[in-house]
C-alpha cells in the first residue's frame, strides 16, 4: 500500500470507540422469540438451523446460527442470469469441502427486484412467494441459504410483516393450503456471505494464490445491512464493529489489503427500475459516488461486494463512463468469486470472468495468473460443445482446483 493511502486501521484509530453490545438492551426485539411463540400456538412451523452451525454475533449482540451444510440454495436471478460465475463459485466452494447442499428446481426468485422496481405486486403476493419457497425447502429437509442480498433483506422485511399482521398470515396460509404446503419460517434467514464469513479461515487453509499484491475496496450491500439492520453480522475486530464484518473479513483472511474510501455507506446506484430502464441515474451514481471515489482515495486493484445488483451496477456502469474520460477501470467481483479464485478455481469454468465487463486482465496479471492459458483451455471446451462432442461443462470438469503455472 502506498503511504498516502487511507487505511482501515488509520480510520479506526481516529474514529473508533469501545462498542458495547448487549442483546438485553438492543433497540429492537428478538423476532425469533415471536416465531417460537407463533409455532407454539400452531400458527407456523419454524424450521431449525441444522447442525453443524456456527454462532456469530449480530449488530446488537445477539447470536445468529449460520449453517455449514445441509443447505437449500435459494439462487439469485441476477447472479444466475447475468453473472453466473457468482453462483458457480458459491457451489464450488461448498464442493471443495464435500459439504452437503441442494440446488433446487422448485425455487422461484423472491420477485423482490420487481417489487422494488415497479410495485406491481402487493404484501400478500410477496409473502406468499417467500413462504412457498421456504415451504419447498422445509419439505426437502434442507435449510434455506439465500444468495441474493435483496431476497435476504426482502424476506426479513416480510418475516416482520408476517409476524406482526395476523391477517397477512391467514391470507398466506389460505394460498399455501391450495398447494398442500405448510406456512414455514426458518429460525434464521441466512445470506450466503454469512456462510462465506464463517468459512473464511477454512478457505485460507486451502488457498493456493498469494493475494497479498492486491488492494481491494469493499462495497457493503444496502439490502444486506440496512433492511432489518439487527440481523447482519458485526465483529469488533472489523472496523471496530462500526460496519458489517462480512466481505471485509474474508478478504483480510485471504491476505488482501482492504482499503477504505469515504462513500462506503452509499448505495451502488442500482435502483431496481433504474438499472433496467433509467440507467442515466445508475451510471452517474455508480461512477461519480463509488468508482471514482474509490479510484481517488484508494486506487484499488479490485472492488468486492456481496450482492447481485451491486456487482452488476458497479461493473457494467464503467464502460460508458470511460468514454467520457472518467476515472474508472476497477474490476468487480463477489466475495465468493474472490475466495474461489484464491483456492484455485478455474477463472473461466468456475469464476466465469468472461461475463464481466470492466477489464479484469490486469488484476489476474498482478496475481501472476496466466489467464490466456486458461482462456485457451476454456475455448477448447467451447469448441467441443459446438462440435457436439461435449454436452457442456460439468462439475467433473470444474471441481479440481487449478495449479497455476
Amino acid at each position, binding site marked *: 500500500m502506498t503511504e498516502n493511502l487511507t487505511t482501515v486501521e488509520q480510520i479506526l484509530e481516529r474514529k473508533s470507540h469501545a462498542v458495547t453490545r448487549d442483546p438485553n438492551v438492543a433497540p429492537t426485539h428478538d423476532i425469533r422469540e415471536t416465531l417460537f411463540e407463533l409455532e407454539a400456538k400452531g400458527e407456523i412451523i419454524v424450521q431449525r438451523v441444522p447442525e453443524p452451525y456456527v454462532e456469530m454475533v449480530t449488530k446488537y449482540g445477539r447470536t445468529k446460527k449460520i449453517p455449514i451444510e445441509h443447505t437449500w440454495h435459494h439462487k439469485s436471478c441476477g447472479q444466475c442470469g447475468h453473472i453466473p460465475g457468482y453462483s458457480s463459485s458459491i457451489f464450488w466452494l461448498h464442493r471443495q469441502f464435500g459439504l452437503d447442499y441442494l440446488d433446487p428446481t*422448485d425455487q422461484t*426468485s423472491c420477485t423482490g427486484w420487481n417489487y422494488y*422496481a415497479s410495485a406491481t405486486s402487493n404484501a400478500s403476493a410477496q409473502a406468499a412467494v417467500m413462504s412457498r419457497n421456504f415451504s419447498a425447502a422445509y419439505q426437502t429437509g434442507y435449510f434455506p441459504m439465500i444468495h441474493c442480498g435483496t431476497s435476504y433483506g426482502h424476506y426479513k422485511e416480510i418475516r416482520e410483516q408476517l409476524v406482526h399482521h395476523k391477517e397477512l398470515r391467514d391470507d398466506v396460509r389460505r394460498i399455501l393450503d391450495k398447494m398442500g404446503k405448510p406456512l414455514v419460517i426458518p429460525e434464521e434467514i441466512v445470506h450466503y456471505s454469512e456462510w462465506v464469513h464463517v468459512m473464511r479461515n477454512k478457505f485460507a487453509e486451502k488457498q493456493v494464490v498469494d493475494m497479498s499484491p492486491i488492494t481491494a475496496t469493499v462495497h457493503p450491500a444496502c439490502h444486506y445491512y*440496512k433492511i432489518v439492520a439487527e440481523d447482519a453480522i458485526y465483529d469488533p475486530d472489523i472496523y471496530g464493529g462500526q460496519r458489517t464484518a462480512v466481505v471485509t473479513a474474508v478478504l483480510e483472511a485471504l491476505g488482501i489489503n482492504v482499503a477504505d474510501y469515504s462513500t462506503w455507506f452509499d448505495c451502488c446506484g442500482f435502483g431496481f427500475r433504474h438499472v433496467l430502464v433509467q440507467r442515466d441515474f445508475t451510471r452517474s451514481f455508480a461512477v461519480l459516488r463509488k468508482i471514482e471515489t474509490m479510484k481517488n482515495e484508494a486506487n484499488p486493484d479490485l472492488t468486492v461486494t456481496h450482492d447481485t445488483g451491486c456487482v452488476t451496477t458497479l461493473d457494467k456502469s464503467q464502460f460508458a463512463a470511460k468514454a467520457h474520460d472518467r476515472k474508472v477501470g476497477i474490476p468487480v467481483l463477489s466475495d465468493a468469486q474472490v475466495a474461489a479464485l484464491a483456492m484455485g478455481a478455474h477463472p473461466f469454468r468456475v469464476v466465469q470472468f468472461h461475463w464481466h465487463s470492466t477489464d479484469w486482465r490486469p488484476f489476474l496479471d498482478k496475481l501472476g495468473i496466466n489467464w490466456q492459458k486458461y482462456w485457451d483451455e476454456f475455448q477448447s471446451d467451447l469448441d467441443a*460443445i459446438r462440435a457436439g462432442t461435449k454436452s457442456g461443462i460439468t462439475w467433473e470438469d470444474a471441481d479440481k482446483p487449478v495449479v497455476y503455472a
Partner: protein
Amino acid sequence: MPTTIESWNPGKAENRHPDVTYDEKERLFLEVKNDPRYSDFLYGCYECGICVSTCPSARFYDYSPRVIAQAMAREDIERVYDIISEDIWNCAQCFSCLRCPRGNNPGGLVTLLREVAVKNGLQETKDVLQGYSRVIYKVMLKGNQVSPDMLQPDFFPDWGPWVKEFSANMPVWRKAIPVDTLRGVTDAAWRTDRKTLLELYTIWFETGNMDIIKEIDEGLYDLLADVMQEELEEG
C-alpha cells in the same frame, strides 16, 4: 409574485394537479394511510435530514425522503398527490433512509405510495412503467426478474461491446456453466419445475396481483392471463 409574510405558506403547495379533485387525492392518501404497514413506517419527523444526506436519489433528482415523511405526517393531501404522481419513481429503494433516528422508513412509504399508484392506474405511473413491461412479463411467467436472453445490445447499449459478445455466444456459453440448474438455460435464470411455476401463477391470481397488472397494462394482462390460465387448466 414575490413571496411575502402574508403569502408565504409552507406546507401548502400550490395546486399542481387541478384536474384531480381534492376528494380523489384524499381517497388515494387514505388508501396509503390505511395500509396495515403504514404505522410501522412512519412515526413523525425530526427534520434532521439524515435520510436526505444518505439518499442517492436526492443527489440526482429534485427528490427528498424527508419531504415525503413530512408531507405524510402532516397529511398534506395536495403535496402527497404531487409525490404519488411524480416523486416516488425517483426513489432507488436502497433503504439507506432507514438510518432515520426517529425510526421512519421513507423507502417503505414510497413502496406503499407506489402500490397505490399502480393499483389505481395513475397515468404518470403508466407512463413511467411503459418501457418496463417486458420485465414484468418475464418475472411473472418465469419467476425470474432477468434471464440470459435479455442481454441484448438494443436493451443494454451502454454496457459496452461485450453485450454483443454475450448475446452471440449465449447458447454455448450457457452450456459451459457447471451448475446443473443453470447449464444450457437461456430463457430463465435457472431451470424451474413446471409444478413450481403453476404454484407461482396460483399466487398471482389468488392475491389479486393479476388485477394489479390489468389496471396498469391491459395488453400485458391479456398476454399473461392467456398463458397462465392455459397452463393452470392443463394442470
